[in-house]
């Protein structure tokens, strides 16, 4: 039953006010939480540009002098160029392998019929249930026997293997959504299986592939346990482990350490800010399917 119009005006004004106040409170909460995230970053950067003397005297505040040279020094002294390169040499093959192998396998699982399909898929799911971390002990000795310890392959191969189940799952569910009519008409036109894959399914799966790419990139770039166990040669260290090693060696020089940490996170933050849609989609898609 509709209330009389005068009363309606009051209600809508009341609603507008409530909405304003609600938005204000929400915005305040949102800002407050932003501080929770941003303050540690800001503080690390501030500390990175302070002088060693200033840190005990002024731990909290804005630097009195801005020693930008700390970044250059950390880079040079901490061999970060080496660590960056190693991370790149590991990430690129890993991502490529994951993308290619996952696409092929997901295609098979979504479009083809074959014996033992369900069993094989179930085996793949073990990869999702078992964390890679607990396998590090046997992995170390396996790779040692293969002579791969202290090489990039020691990081590329297990990492790819660990992410493949996720990749296949993700791409498969995406490929299953490809409309049947498109596939059927292609088949009628005489399209081969490979053609189906390359000309139809892959192009249509681009969003999922982009998400998988970004997700694999992030997970591999930040991987710590694998390289810490499998790489001891400083020349082969990846960035996270390099930073940790740097922390051990320069732990008495706080600004230098913070500069090293900043150098480590700037690139991935940049990549993230630009490609965040894909990052988030990658995670969401995986968890929701």
């Amino acid at each position, binding site marked *: 039953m509709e209330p009389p119009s005068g009363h309606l005006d009051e209600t809508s004004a009341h609603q507008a006010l409530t909405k304003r106040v609600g938005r204000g409170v929400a915005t305040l909460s949102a800002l407050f939480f932003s501080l929770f995230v941003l303050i540690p970053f800001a503080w690390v950067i501030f500390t990175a540009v302070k002088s060693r003397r200033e840190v005990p005297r002024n731990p909290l505040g804005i630097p009195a002098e801005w020693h930008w040279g700390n970044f250059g020094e950390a*880079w040079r*002294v901490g061999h970060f160029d080496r660590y960056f390169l190693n991370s790149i040499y590991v990430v690129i093959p890993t991502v490529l392998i994951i993308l290619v192998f996952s696409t092929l396998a997901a295609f098979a699982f979504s479009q083809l019929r074959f014996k033992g399909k369900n069993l094989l898929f179930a085996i793949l799911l073990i990869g999702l249930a078992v964390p890679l971390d607990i396998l590090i002990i046997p992995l170390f000795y396996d790779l040692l026997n293969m002579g791969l310890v202290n090489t990039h392959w020691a990081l590329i191969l297990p990492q790819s293997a660990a992410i493949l189940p996720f990749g296949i799952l993700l791409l498969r569910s995406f490929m299953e959504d490809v409309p049947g009519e498109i596939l059927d008409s292609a088949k009628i036109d005489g399209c081969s299986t490979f053609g189906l894959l390359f000309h139809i399914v892959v192009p249509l799966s681009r969003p999922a592939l982009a998400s998988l790419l970004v997700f694999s990139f992030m997970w591999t770039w930040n991987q710590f346990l694998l390289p810490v166990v499998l790489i001891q040669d400083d020349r082969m260290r990846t960035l996270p482990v390099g930073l940790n090693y740097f922390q051990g060696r320069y732990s*008495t020089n706080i600004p230098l350490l913070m500069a090293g940490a900043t150098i480590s996170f700037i690139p991935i933050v940049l990549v993230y800010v630009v490609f965040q849609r894909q990052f988030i989609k990658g995670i969401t898609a995986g968890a929701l399917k």
Partner: protein
Amino acid sequence: MRSQVRTLSVLILLVAILAACAQPTPEVVEKVVTKEVEVEKVVTQIVQETVIVEVEGTPQVVEKEVEVIVTATPEPIEEANLEVWYLSQSPEEIQLVEELSSAFAQRHPGVTVTISPYGFDDMNKTIKLALDSGTGPDVAYVSPGAGAGHVSYAQAGHLVELTEVATERGWDQRHPIDSIMYWQKELGGPIWGVPYDITNVGVFYNKDLFNELDLKPPQTFEEFETLLATLKDAGYTPFSTGALDGWPFDHYFMILVHATTPIDKIEALNYLQPGVSLSEDSFVEAATILKDWIDKGYFNDNFLAASYQDQNNLFITGETAMNIGGTWNNATFVQQADFEVGFFPLPRVNPDIEWHSMVTPNNVWIVPKYTEYQDLAIDYIDYMLSGEVARALWDTGDIPTFAFATVPEATSGLQADVYKAGLDTGIGYYYTNNMPEAMEAEWSALQMMAAGDLTPEEAMEMIEEYHAEAVAEAQ
């Protein structure tokens, strides 16, 4: 997606420009240029040198004969790359070794030396496997002793025995303390690894502060306790420690153990021999003294949350009067403290025992059996043990094992103190090195004791449990 790639490229460009602006002033790098040089065969020269010698504290100027050993360039050999694994976390030390190694390479045309630094954990994890699979280095500077040390690699048959070489090259004549045999005792003789410097653990102190308060390094433990109380009453914090990392605090305990316990018992612990237990009185006494110091507030605030870096930083900035730690810190303290840093060994608690601190030969040089450059490796070690290198080490504040005919002038008061302490006291042992689980238990037990969760007796019992296990397994 394309616009995203574009944005990213722009951002990368911006960062690159910023980075280029953030370069530190380039330091002057000395380039090593290899030249062909005619060298005469010179071995030993006797030279008259004016040297200042400290005799009983009074500097005297004296003319002395000094042996100067000059190495001549040996015959050039074919191209070789000597892979050296070096155990150290200190950037300065690693840099020095790299410089020394390139000097070595200069004298051996065709030879390059690659130094790979390793931390303690990493080295122990990798070296055994590397030796076993024959894929390791040609020379390595590793942890000494049994357990995870070089003696265990020797027992597994991986190392070249250096006993003869040591005699030939006079290595065993070059040490003022029994450094070379130190790590070989349980095998009764063969030399598998050779140390080239010595570390000590003792009390670093703020000389300026001591002078201000009219304090002197103590000669007896009572004097030390009085000194601590004086400092505390005057409003100063006596000690800094980083107990969060475990091992820095353990050093306080271990040095006390060396002050309360006869050295043969500590030796027995070190070599995993039966017949000694950490629940014995002397160990409990050491723990009790430490607890006493904690209760009296002699340590930095929140020391259980402080790390090793905090321990050193607090001392360097003058916030604590003393710092019990290892002499690998010498260079850091000398360079970064505003005040003069001194060192004295901990006085004995038990007057009936010999005076020992933890003077230990540092890590050892070893030569794996599988290397194709065995002779070159031995030449390299010979070079590292030479007077020239010893002098270079000495100049950085380190104490080499080399027996100088005349001890060079100390580069700092600290180094003079450390050198003297090394001669006054006897060797000690990192007795948990061969039992890693007991080592972790010791760290944890001491931390629990510090937090008040365990009594000193209980703490010792906790460590003893793992020690007993290790001994049982070693039999």
